């Protein structure tokens, strides 16, 4: 295999693994902030126990997120040096801003959150929970800015040497896809947190463990689980429209849409034959056009508008996107069902639903991984949409042999981290929100 393919596999592996942890961090930080606010207001020990429980869990999640995050920051230099040389003017400041404005805040106060309960006043402790929440979300913001700039570059000029020069920091940061992508991604992390809390609490309640704390946790989780997928429906919709407007080739790949047409179909599920340029499956006629601007006959651009060499792998994008959407639908249905059970007071005795909840925990991760594949593979063959090809971005001095070594190293190490993470997470869950 050539070095480019190996570098891409390594990036996909390391970012795909890293992504699991910040997604949980943001979701859990939200839950901690809510439960600590309730503790501050209601002075009820139950909420303190819930906060402490999730702070312990956050300690484990955060450390793996942090160490795998450093790998990502290094990777632009180690594996994508041509990319770094070309876009240092824009991409560098975004990563540096992430450090100064966000990651410091999160990392410094996470120490207080995990170790400082007995050392600071309840007010300062609450403030630490707030600052970890904010730091984490600021961090996500800057990383999303970096990615969004690769999808819809703005605020730049190209100089005589072919280097990208920053012309407006504000326009680069708030490029056309930043806000939509940020809302969509953050809500995905909140759903991750909501499902995780509901799953753990559901297990406790059905097993009769941790009494009142488990019930309070379940209530908190289910309310979030009912609300966040609905908010996501709106955010995802606006993001999809933005993709159709700004990255029509990616949008066409997401639906396996080849010919520019008025009244484009939307697939519930299907399969794309890239060679025959046909898409098979169950579809809603004119559905895509309707969702685009509520007009059944609006025009949607097809893949054939651009040369085939500029197409992404269509079926992969199509399948990833549809898995994500299907999962979003499942979350909406199950979240609303949970809210109804909670409202009618039946939730604590509806054993099948409580039993189901823990098995949902991996699903938001599947949704954001497939969503990320849609976004990133859908952008191919470009590393910066319309501006620079991925093939021109990798390091010139790194050999295939070096990459095989590093790829094997990351595969083995991340496998170990994953196994340890699951073991220790299960252990923390078994300890539960003990009264200390």
């Amino acid at each position, binding site marked *: 295999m050539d070095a480019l393919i190996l570098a891409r596999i390594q990036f996909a592996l390391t970012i795909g693994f890293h992504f699991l942890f910040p997604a949980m961090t943001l979701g859990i930080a939200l839950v901690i902030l809510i439960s600590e606010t309730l503790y501050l207001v209601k002075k009820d020990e139950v909420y303190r126990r819930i906060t402490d429980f999730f702070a312990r869990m956050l300690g484990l999640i955060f450390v793996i997120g942090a160490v795998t995050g450093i790998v990502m920051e290094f990777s632009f230099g180690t594996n994508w040096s041509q990319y770094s040389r070309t876009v240092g003017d824009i991409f560098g400041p975004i*990563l540096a801003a992430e450090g100064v404005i966000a990651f410091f805040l999160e990392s410094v106060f996470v120490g207080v959150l995990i170790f400082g309960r007995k050392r600071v006043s309840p007010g300062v402790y609450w403030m630490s929970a707030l600052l970890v929440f904010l730091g984490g979300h600021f961090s996500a913001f800057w990383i999303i800015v970096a990615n969004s700039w690769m999808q819809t570059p703005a605020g730049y000029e190209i100089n005589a040497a072919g280097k990208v020069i920053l012309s407006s920091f504000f326009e680069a940061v708030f490029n056309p896809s930043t806000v939509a992508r940020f809302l969509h991604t953050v809500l995905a992390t909140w759903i991750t947190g909501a499902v995780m809390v509901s799953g753990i609490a559901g297990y406790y309640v059905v097993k009769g463990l941790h009494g009142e704390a488990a019930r309070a946790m379940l209530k908190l989780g289910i309310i979030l689980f009912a609300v966040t997928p609905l908010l996501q429906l709106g955010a995802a919709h606006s993001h999809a429209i933005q993709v159709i407007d700004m990255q029509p080739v990616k949008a066409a790949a997401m639906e396996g849409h080849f010919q520019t047409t008025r009244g484009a179909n939307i697939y519930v599920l299907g399969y794309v034959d890239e060679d025959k340029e046909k898409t098979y499956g169950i579809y809603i006629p004119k559905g895509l056009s309707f969702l685009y601007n509520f007009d059944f006959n609006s025009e949607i651009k097809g893949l054939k508008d651009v040369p085939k060499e500029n197409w992404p792998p269509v079926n992969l994008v199509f399948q990833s996107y549809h898995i994500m959407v299907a999962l979003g639908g499942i979350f909406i249905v199950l979240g609303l069902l949970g809210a109804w059970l909670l409202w009618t007071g039946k939730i604590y005795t509806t054993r099948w639903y409580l039993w189901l909840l823990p098995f949902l925990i991996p699903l938001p991760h599947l949704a954001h991984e497939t969503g990320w594949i849609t976004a990133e593979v859908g952008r191919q063959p470009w590393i910066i949409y319309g501006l620079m090809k991925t093939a021109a971005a990798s390091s010139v001095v790194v050999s295939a042999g070096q990459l095989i070594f590093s790829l094997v190293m990351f595969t083995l190490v991340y496998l170990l981290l994953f196994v340890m993470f699951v073991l220790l997470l299960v*252990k923390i869950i078994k300890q539960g929100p003990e009264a200390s």
Partner: protein
Amino acid sequence: MENIQNFQILWFVLIFILLLGYALLDGFDLGMAVLLPFLGGTKEEKDTLIASIGPVWDGNEVWLVTGGGALFAAFPQAYATAFSGFYSAMMLVLLALIFRGVSIKFRANDPARAGLWEKAFIGGSALAPLLFGVALGNVIYGVPLDGRMEYAGGFFTLLRPVPLWFGITGLAAVLLQGATWAVLKTQGEMQKRSFRAAGILTVINAVMAVISFAVLAVLFPRLSGNTLFYLAVVITFAGLTGLFFSVRKKNDAVPFWASSLSFIGLFLAAGSAQFPNLITASNDPNLSLTIYNSSTGIYTLQVMAVIALVGMPIVIGYTIFVYRVFKGKANADDHY
């Protein structure tokens, strides 16, 4: 139009400060980790030592992340050349940082394999500063570069004697940071051991500093006219002298500050030898990557200067606040 050179110099200084901040702060937790077998006898003593860095090591490491980001933002050519050129060494750095990070948590939560995680913690903590020192030694001593600014050496080019010496010097300074941190955070028998370690390491560091300065003076004759270099020598030995006396007087806090001072001196010497180069070309001085031929445009440097000069004082402010929250002697029951 404002002079871009001023901003290029400013960014050399700011990255210097970020990397110095990293060396001083992560330095003490990495150094203490390496000394764990010598400072802590029982498991409880080791727990106490690790508890002293538990709440802060994560924030300390962000100085590296931000320093790397700043290098990318200000001098992307140097970032790209060094990180891709030193690829295999960088992968080992990542391996070291991953293991030293996760094994703190794994050791505390996985008693069955605690000994194994402790070894990973110690090994990762020793390897990281050694490799950082070697990398710094290489970019100062010089590596072969080609006309496209790409690294033209191999893995073993990095392991020449002079860069290796930089690595060992850096590791010794980090160990001293760790020993004096342990002096600050422990009491009783453990503190006695920490004082002893700090004393021995002071002597080792003094000998190494003399050799290092001599090596620098021989390698870079131009340093003879450089006031900063002389200042660096004075600061290093002022720090080491302060260490010598404060360790003898069994003072709790002064050794840590004195060790930090001597580390600042070493950094200043390296910085004064390096300026205005970022990566020195050993084959042809004209191929060197300098702050002038490797930087981003003036607008990026200006935007970043605003973010750094507003943001970093705030960061330093709340970092001090959190260190004060956890001040005092460490306690094994306190954490985990």
